[in-house]
């Protein structure tokens, strides 16, 4: 029974590689490579200057080392910073012109573009390695004035917006990985919602690391202008490889007056095999700025993959009455490690934030919730509520909670709660008595444990996420 389960685990659903010729920049991190990237993307000069500024700054920065999961030193000169499918160098005009093999890959991933275009009503901006190869539903979005394209396209077509907002939430000088991304980012999504527009559909991106030894450095910028609304979905997978790959993305959100952004992630990068070999290092910087009054940013994440997940989707609540929310499920199994959480920085008056985090660790894994709630002295009448619960399966794994709570305002209220527990024998017994096998029982209980967060996901994702929760925990009981 056990062996069978392990065999099953080996079978990472998305563990195929696609045989497509790639254009790669030479290995290593230097001026030439950055110039190469910028040239390949036909970027204007100001963009190259910006990258160079980040690169200069990078030389003086050190990798942070306060995180719980430690990793072997990354050789930044041994990474390909740019890799694009050859067929994409001449941009296809419609989906039908795409490399059929590429389309096949997406089909395996479960996002057949044409299908989706017809049936689902979701606009997909698929990122294959580093270049965005196809963007669907453009017409419908154009109608209402929503700009949804790759960031490289936006740099060329909408430079004034990009110039204004790029780096406004995550500055060039923020920290090592963010700065690295600023210097070498290759592609990503760009969304602009004009004033008063409610985006007619859920926007979605699918990232996928294909070529070996490449890092993926995408950059996403979402701007919701006054009174607009957008919901954005992001899903990630990567093929199985023995070596560790680095993924250092930057995501910036800006919400102006009365605008709302909902950002959902289902992250299922390759977690490494059952002995902890290989897997993705997911070191992502995600930050949202509630710039206007009454604005709202909500992060929802389901983190089941990656060898090491190290990210803190954050909200800077600058506008008065703005709201930040963070809902997270993080599951680690085998030798996976996660150090994730959020930061809620209250600057404006009457700002509110809510954090619900559910961590589940099994096998030999290690899970840390790390979060910051910072209420500044000007943020009068602010509120924060934090709840972080952990579930442990077995005594070889770890679950840790490290909240940082700073309150400088007497008119504000902060409440924090955390619990750590295991699945009780009674619950398991009850479910099994009703005819579920142990694994189904655990799946059911865990899904119940996570329900508060799963409810936040859009329908299509919620179903996938629920399945993922089950798959991730396979082999952890018995």
């Amino acid at each position, binding site marked *: 029974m056990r062996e069978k389960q392990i065999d099953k685990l080996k079978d990472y659903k998305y563990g195929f590689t696609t045989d497509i010729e790639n254009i790669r920049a030479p290995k290593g991190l230097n001026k030439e490579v950055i110039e190469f990237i910028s040239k390949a993307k036909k970027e204007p000069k100001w963009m190259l200057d910006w990258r160079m500024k980040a690169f200069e700054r990078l030389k003086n920065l050190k990798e942070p080392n*306060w995180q719980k999961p430690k990793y072997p030193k990354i050789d930044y000169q041994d990474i390909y910073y740019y890799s694009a499918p050859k067929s994409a160098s001449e941009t296809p005009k419609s989906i039908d012109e795409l490399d059929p093999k590429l389309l096949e890959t997406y089909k395996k991933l479960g996002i057949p573009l044409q299908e989706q275009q017809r049936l689902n009503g979701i606009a997909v901006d698929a990122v294959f390695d580093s270049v965005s190869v196809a963007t669907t539903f453009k017409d419908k979005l154009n109608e209402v004035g929503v700009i949804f394209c790759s960031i490289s396209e936006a740099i060329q077509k909408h430079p004034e917006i990009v110039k204004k907002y790029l780096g406004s939430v995550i500055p060039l000088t923020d920290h090592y990985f963010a700065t690295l991304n600023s210097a070498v980012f290759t592609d990503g999504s760009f969304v602009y919602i004009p004033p008063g527009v409610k985006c007619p559909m859920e926007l979605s991106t699918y990232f996928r690391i294909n070529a070996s030894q490449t890092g993926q450095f995408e950059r996403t910028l979402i701007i919701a202008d006054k009174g607009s609304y957008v919901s954005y979905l992001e899903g990630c997978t990567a093929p199985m490889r023995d070596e560790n790959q680095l993924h250092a993305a930057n995501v910036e959100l800006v919400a102006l007056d009365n605008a709302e952004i909902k950002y959902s992630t289902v992250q299922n990068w390759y977690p490494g095999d059952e002995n902890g070999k290989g897997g993705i290092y997911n070191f992502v910087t995600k930050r949202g700025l509630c710039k206007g009054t009454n604005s709202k940013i909500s992060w929802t994440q389901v983190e089941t993959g990656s060898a090491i997940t190290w990210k803190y989707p954050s909200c800077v609540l600058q506008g008065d009455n703005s709201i930040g929310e963070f809902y997270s499920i993080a599951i680690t199994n085998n030798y996976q490690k996660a150090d994730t959480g959020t930061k809620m920085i209250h600057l404006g008056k009457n700002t509110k934030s809510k954090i619900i985090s559910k961590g589940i660790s099994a096998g030999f894994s290690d899970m840390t919730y790390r979060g910051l709630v910072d209420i500044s*002295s000007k943020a009068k009448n602010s509120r924060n509520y934090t709840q972080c619960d*952990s579930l*442990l*399966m*077995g*005594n*070889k*794994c*770890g*679950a*840790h*909670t*490290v*909240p*940082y*709570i*700073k*309150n*400088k*305002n*007497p*008119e*504000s*209220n*902060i*409440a*924090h*709660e*955390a*619990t*750590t*527990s*295991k699945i009780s024998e009674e619950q398991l017994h009850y479910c099994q008595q009703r005819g579920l096998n142990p694994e189904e029982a655990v799946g059911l209980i865990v899904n119940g444990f996570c329900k508060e967060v799963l409810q936040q996901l859009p329908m299509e994702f919620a179903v996938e996420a629920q399945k993922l929760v089950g798959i991730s925990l396979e082999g952890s009981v018995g």
Partner: protein
Amino acid sequence: MEEQLKIDFEKLLENSNFSKKNAEIKRKNFDNFIEKGFPNRREENWKFSDLNQIISKNIKNLSFYNDLSKPNKIDQSIYIDGLEHNKIVFVNGRIEKIEFDYEEKNKIEILDDLVLEKSNNTTNSLLFLNNAFVSKYFKLIIKKNYSLQKPLVIYNITNKDLVSKNINLKVDIFLEENSSLKLIEFSNDKSTTNFININYNFNVQKNSILKNYKIDNNSNSNIKYCFNNISQDANSVSEIFLLSSGSEFIKNEINCNLNGKYSSAFVNGVFILNETKHHEIKTNINHIVENTKSYQLIKGVLEDTSKAVYQGKIFVDSKAQKTDGYQLSKAILLNDNTEFNAKPELEIYADDVKCSHGSASGSLNEDSIFYLMSRGLNYKEAKKLLINGFLLDVVEKITDSEIKNLIKNIMSLKQ
């Protein structure tokens, strides 16, 4: 400062007759301290309280050598009234009196001039400083099956003669099997701008009970650090209460290892701060074996521009199944410029445990004030009543009724 340190260290070696081995260990600790210096905010442990900055801001020309050859006068008026107790009195870092009038003499042993142990796997630079400069190292042993009749009060007094000095104290307290000790540490400072660095090591053997009450209530401009290391054997109990109120800066650090089954630790603390005071409590409760229990309750009331920090950590080893760990911190902020920072941390490696923590901070409940005022109290009285009730919750956790009353009196909480 480095130069001053070197001069003072040589002076210390010259004027004291340390054994060769002891001097060697001291020098090693000294070198370690020189290398690391005072901790700053880059260290996770000192993230909210940058000691290096605090010292350089508050103390000018800090010197480290302390001439202990001449006895100091004890100001008897500061003795605790209305409580029969045994005494150990330190004045300006020099031990002046040891008095166990209420106890059987052969049940208590006091060793002074202990030699430092070599193996000291710490990275805490303040312990290096302490080891390097401490001139006498005491050990108090409570013999098997003996419970002290009366509480022991360790007075830590400084007088006006002491200015801009660093004082280091190191005391080991060893409770043999089945023994019990009630210990009050009472500090009274009339000195200004000194850095006082205290290191207690408690060893609580099987079935023993340690009750430790630390009272820092009288207002002074000293900077203090107190490191308490507690290791507990099976069935032992430790109860710690901290009244953190008087000094300009104080950080109480408690590292408690629950090494024996059914051992338990209780840490309760109160911050009452005003003006520019900045206090911190840091706890580290390590559940090493099965069936251990810990409970922490910290409350604070902050006024003016004061700042309080609570960093609490519960660590549960993978062997420590059936652990019960609880942690709660609450603060009331009375002014716009006060600050409360908390980092309640859990690090858990065992699955069959019950661990939870909570933290809350905010202002006084306006509804409660309104209710009291509608019953005829004025605003000030209503506020006072609510604050007292808030703090009383912690004081009521004290298990010794005599000492509980004493502390209530000190805090001027009415019965």
